[in-house]
């Protein structure tokens, strides 16, 4: 049983994984793509960390009606890359994986900044790049940049 096969068995046995798809590294850039329920994300992250994976990136996609979180895990020891997709909006907020991968801290803050998606149990969920302004989530589809944003708003205190 190859490394990939054993990983597939582990991923399939996870109860939160709703769909597992083998992808081709040449065409898709990753070996496994899986859909997962939000509450299963920390468990998946912990399991992948035990397998020697690290968090490559964490981002979100806005499809208009729904939004999805996209996690990518990778490892150096064996060429292996797992992409996990979980629905994030308008469903319940996904739990943070800071406890498993500390690198997720700022990436979750960036997703919160750009998309307005919250993460449960995040130690310090505040904006990373933009100023504190109501409704300023510029990567959302329904965000319209108008003159109300381009004023000389300068924050008076460091956050």
């Amino acid at each position: 049983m190859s490394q990939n096969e054993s990983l597939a068995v582990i991923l399939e046995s996870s109860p939160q994984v709703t769909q597992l798809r083998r992808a081709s590294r040449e065409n898709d850039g990753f070996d496994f793509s899986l859909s997962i329920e939000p509450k299963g994300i920390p468990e998946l992250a912990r399991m992948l960390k035990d397998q020697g994976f690290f968090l490559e990136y964490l981002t979100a996609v806005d499809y208009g009606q729904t939004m999805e979180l996209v996690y990518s895990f990778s490892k150096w020891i064996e060429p292996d890359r797992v992409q996990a997709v979980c629905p994030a909006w308008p469903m319940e907020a996904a739990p943070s994986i800071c406890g498993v991968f500390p690198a997720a801290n700022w990436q979750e803050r960036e997703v919160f900044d750009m998309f307005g998606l919250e993460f449960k149990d995040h130690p310090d969920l505040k904006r990373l790049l933009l100023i504190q302004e109501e409704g300023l989530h510029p990567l959302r589809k329904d965000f319209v940049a108008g003159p109300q944003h381009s004023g000389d708003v300068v924050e008076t205190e460091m956050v």
Partner: protein
Amino acid sequence: MVERFETPPPVQLGILNQMLDLCRANSLWPMTFGLACCAIEMMAAGASRFDLDRFGAGVFRPSPRQSDVMIVAGTISKKMAPIIVTLYDQMPAPKWVVAMGNCAISGGPFAYEGQYAIVNGADRFLPVDVYVPGCPPRPEALIQGLLELEDQLTGGAKRNYLRRFKRHPGNDQE
């Protein structure tokens, strides 16, 4: 002589003030402080090929407490603006500000309606003395800007006796 004090200093030294200004003009200490790609040109201006040290302005200080000049080199995001103000407030007077590059002058390519992240120019919240245009300006342009600042301090090119090079003949008149 450009007066930089909000209130006049308690001790006035008469003609010695002009001497002090001459000293200040020829030992401007900028702050090590870059915001975007203009900072690369600022580093090049400080390095050996262009060598700001020829004009006494190459001593980049890592602390605002030791600096005279703030070179705002790059794009100012709204998140960064309060930090820049804090750094400016921490510099001891007399102090000067050079806005380097189009972003620091007017927002440059980021100035459009609906811009939500960038402040359109350093002069919206800082008293800017010299503007150095360019995107980014070449190191010669920054040097020219600092020489312009020295002229502002001493009251003109003719008064700046310590200048170690001949000016272009056309620029010699005040």
